[in-house]
């Protein structure tokens, strides 16, 4: 297999190197890619969509259809992971471990039984889970800031690098940080599985629904200028607003999916003990 792999890799590489001879040099301003479509985007975006961040405009408007499916890809990955991993008949863990919060004493309770919920005991994943007050506290403190930053990234995508994907990933990361610093159960308590799943779908639905709304308003799918009549603005501004709406949708979907995938993959779909 190694030899075959080598041969295939070398053949492919050879073909690509051979072909690279015809390519324009790196960062050549006269290359076709830079002279054919991109000038239009650069020069007309502001006029046509009133979004200064051209990447955002191209992403969510000119090629908004791609982006919708991009969100759908994420969504389907989330559903696929769920479908593959989620264990519907949960195995009872052989033993549960509890830590007495004040003293740090760990208690091991054999299969089937569990402690009644109380303030004094917290459940831990395994005996060696350390008593890590600093990490937990710092993360707790950080998470709100992370989330605010995420919202900023989403909202400011029109003017600076950022947008729904980036913001959504950061939002998702904030919850994942919680899951890592505390444990998966805590994170799931904050953001339940059902909520995850619904938010995933809702996020994509915001995107696709906006597009469908345009269609219902009489223009083509995803033609945000149709929203002008609903938003009471001129068609160009409506495009800008439309982009914001779909970016929010993307943000929601990406956040929820990140968390969903993390939950499923890290716990083999049992939603009990995380990594």
């Amino acid at each position: 297999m190694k030899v075959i792999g080598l041969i295939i890799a070398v053949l492919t590489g050879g073909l690509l190197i051979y072909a690279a001879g015809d390519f324009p040099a790196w960062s050549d301003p006269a290359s076709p890619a830079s002279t054919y479509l991109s000038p239009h985007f650069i020069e007309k975006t502001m006029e046509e969509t009133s979004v200064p961040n051209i990447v955002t405009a191209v992403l969510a408007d000119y090629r908004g259809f791609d982006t919708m499916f991009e969100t759908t890809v994420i969504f389907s990955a989330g559903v696929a992971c769920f479908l593959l991993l989620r264990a519907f008949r949960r195995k009872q863990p052989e033993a549960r471990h509890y830590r007495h919060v004040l003293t740090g004493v760990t208690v091991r309770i054999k299969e089937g039984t569990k402690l009644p919920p109380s303030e004094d005991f917290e459940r831990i994943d395994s005996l060696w889970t350390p008593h890590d007050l600093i990490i937990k506290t710092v993360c707790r403190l950080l998470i709100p800031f992370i989330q605010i930053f995420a919202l900023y990234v989403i909202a400011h995508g029109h003017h600076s690098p950022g947008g729904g994907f980036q913001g959504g990933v950061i939002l998702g990361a904030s919850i994942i940080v919680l899951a890592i610093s505390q444990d998966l159960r805590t994170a799931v308590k904050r953001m339940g599985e059902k909520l995850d799943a619904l938010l995933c779908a809702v996020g994509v639905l915001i995107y696709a629904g906006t597009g469908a709304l345009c269609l219902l308003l009489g223009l083509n799918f995803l033609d945000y200028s149709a929203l002008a009549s609903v938003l009471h603005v001129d068609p160009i501004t409506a495009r800008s607003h439309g982009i914001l709406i779909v970016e929010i949708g993307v943000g929601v979907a990406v956040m929820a999916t990140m968390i969903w995938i993390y939950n499923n993959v890290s716990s083999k779909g049992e939603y009990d003990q995380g990594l």
Partner: protein
Amino acid sequence: MGDIIQTIVAKYNFWIYITLMMIGLYAMIAKNNLVKKIVGMNIFQTAIILFYVSIGAKRGATIPILEHGHGGGHNVVHAIDYANPLPHVLMLTAIVVAVATLGVALALAIRVYDRYSTLEEDEILSQIREE
């Protein structure tokens, strides 16, 4: 000789991506461990992302965000001053696809591990043969 070196230097982005791609492809085909294959897959995808992004580069250009937001944004914009935005857009998509594929691949690897208690391909195959 000088010409060749100049070509090599002028197109260094392609040589880098091709090398990365070959590494990734080799790993996907030749590695025995399923997770290593997934790693190879990611290298492979990253190589392509690098390739695309490098298309977008333009000498002397800045990021494709116009300097003025609202209000004064009606200055004349010259395409030559801004990098090509399209490859970036495309690669945002490709990155997302890569992440999604990675997620599904890991989920599958977990399921495989559940069943065979190993991720080495040859061991799995011998187990299948014994079935």
